[in-house]
């Protein structure tokens, strides 16, 4: 495991930008901009891998994440052949307040478990404030996971949920690399993870287009249809 020394200032800027783009991607109701935000986020992730000394992973992230997954999401919005185009603005309401306590319980349990494990593995003094680049990225990963989980569980629009899943995955990758450094196993795991995210997004996007064409709905529940 060889970490090229990255200036702490550059790492802080990178972490801040990653969080900012994740926020844009998840909060933006204009789907076109949200997907563009995702492409930018994936390119930034690729930069992060490059700075961590894993050029092949950077290439895979740029190719699988930014180009293929991001391109696929944009292409889904553009419309395909005879299938009707998706509306580019998400007008569906968020999920009701009824299940909100349960949702927050799940999100906080997830984050609490990870935080406990991170503190157990890295020690409290390494995390507050994050001293090394890897721990900084792991902490960023936890925050991105939090955002992704919130978006995945409160939003209804399926394209936005796919985006949230992809960001959640990126957060997991950052925690993975932050915990164990970009070794051979980690690269293998992240590579499989990227392929799975791509295939899952392809399946999800194809299904969404067909569902929209046949029933005019962009959510799982027909009541909140179009």
């Amino acid at each position, binding site marked *: 495991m060889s970490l090229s020394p990255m200036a702490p200032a550059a790492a802080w800027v990178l972490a801040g930008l990653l969080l900012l783009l994740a926020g844009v991607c998840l909060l933006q109701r204009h789907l076109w901009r949200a997907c563009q935000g995702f492409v930018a986020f994936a390119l930034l992730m690729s930069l992060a891998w490059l700075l961590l000394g894993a050029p092949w992973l950077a290439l895979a992230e740029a190719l699988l994440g930014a180009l293929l997954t991001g391109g696929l999401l944009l292409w889904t919005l553009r419309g395909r052949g005879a299938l009707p185009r998706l509306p580019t603005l998400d007008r569906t309401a968020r999920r009701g307040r009824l299940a909100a306590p349960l949702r927050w319980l799940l999100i906080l349990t997830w984050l609490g478990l990870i935080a406990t*494990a991170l503190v157990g*593995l890295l020690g409290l003094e390494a995390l507050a404030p994050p001293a090394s680049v890897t721990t900084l990225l792991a902490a960023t990963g936890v925050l991105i996971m939090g955002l992704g989980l919130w978006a*995945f569980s409160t939003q209804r629009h399926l394209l936005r949920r796919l985006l949230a899943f992809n960001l959640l*995955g990126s957060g997991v990758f950052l925690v*993975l690399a932050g915990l164990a450094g970009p070794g051979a196993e980690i690269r293998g795991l992240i590579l499989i993870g990227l392929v799975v995210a791509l295939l899952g997004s392809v399946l999800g996007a194809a299904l969404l287009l067909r569902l929209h064409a046949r029933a005019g709905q962009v959510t799982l529940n027909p009541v909140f249809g179009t």
Partner: protein
Amino acid sequence: MSPTPLHLLWLLFAPLALGLLAWVRPPRHSGWVLLAALPLPLVALWLLLGVETGPMAGRLALGPLTLHWRLDGLAASLWLLTQLLLLASALYAASYAHATPLRTRGYAWLWPLLGGLALGLGLIWIAADLLLLYAGLELMGLCAVGMMLLPGSVEALTAGLRYLLFALVGSLTWLLGIALLLGAWGRLDLAGLAAVAQPDPVTQIAVALLASGLLLKGAIFPLHSWLAPVHDSAWTPISAIHGALVVKASFFILLLLWRALLPEAIAGAWALGLLGSLAVLWGGVQAWRAVGLKQLVAWSTVGQLGYLMLAFPLLAGTSAAVALMAWQATWLQLAGHALAKAAMFMAAGNLLLSTGAHRLEGLTGTSRRLPLSLMTFGFAAVTLMGLPPSAGFTAKWLWLQASLASGQWLWVLVLALGSLLSAIYVFRVLRCSFVEDAPEPAFRPLPLGMELIALVLALAAIGLGLAAAWPLSFLAPAGVP
């Protein structure tokens, strides 16, 4: 000649190659399928006989990455079961395409997905590190989602999308658990992890994350909500293979990890056992209340999976004799249920296809017009209810003895209530089909092959109970690993 790693590689990739071939030219006759795919279970059987002397294990270096694999008696038995059930589903699918108009493109896609599923399951059975398990699990999951979508109806699309979202989140939970294990112990191979890992809080959190991902993918209560809608709209051969194998693979991985990482965690094992008990009761009650026949069979899967979870409390911290009984019961139940559930889905599919009905009330008159399929349904139900001489009976008997011997009385109650509930929902189906005075629907004739495949599987589940000693002899002869 004794098996070599090349034979394993062949058995992993041959189904995928056949599937791609069939994608180009979808088979119109089940004879061709039988001819092409028969070598697969035969090779699997030969491998099983080959590992009788001792397990095979090895590693594969891909650049800086090392993958570990291991083929023992349990893995080889499950692989043989997988190949047999895949062959049965493929044969059924070829006849099914004759009997009902399927979308041509969808039918062509069925085959490579079936091949991918075979590869994913094979990887899961022989994997000995978390990376390979991850790859197998994801391949299996994505192929399973793809297969569920083939009908293309709005219901299938919505149910499939929900399944996809669940499976994707499950895979991320699993990845996070691996991240923690790797961060804590620095390795991914199961044998090495079992040697170095201590049951400290980080390992417990990691296993909790891995377990929740697997429970989500395996439809174990309370994360089962995606299962019934998915089966409701899927094609019959796909439901059969999914209910028989796909959900079991998650359980297999969970038990493997639990034995390797937290063998002595009694509180966690009891929690899993209690979840399983709730699954038995809730699945049974929902099957009792189900409106459609396929929904009933799907809910019964939720209940039957719950029994398997009893393995955790009966294996954790119990005496060697109790653990051995629980170990044997678990795999017997898994194999028996896989055969019986595939048979039951096929029989239910036959009944629905022939009557054109969707609800249970539409089955009136089937006792006279479709005796073979109804009898198959009954035979499969014998295993699910745990009546002698089926595999389900032997498994429940072993569990009962294990519960009594270890003083864990609660499971006796669960076993009794679960059998009662399964009897109730099975007899609900039989009562509807024996109604004679209702107006009879127009029956569509079925190819004999479809009925025979289901019957053979149901009889195999009963036969497994009669000849349980032979498969059990392959399961860790030296006791529970």
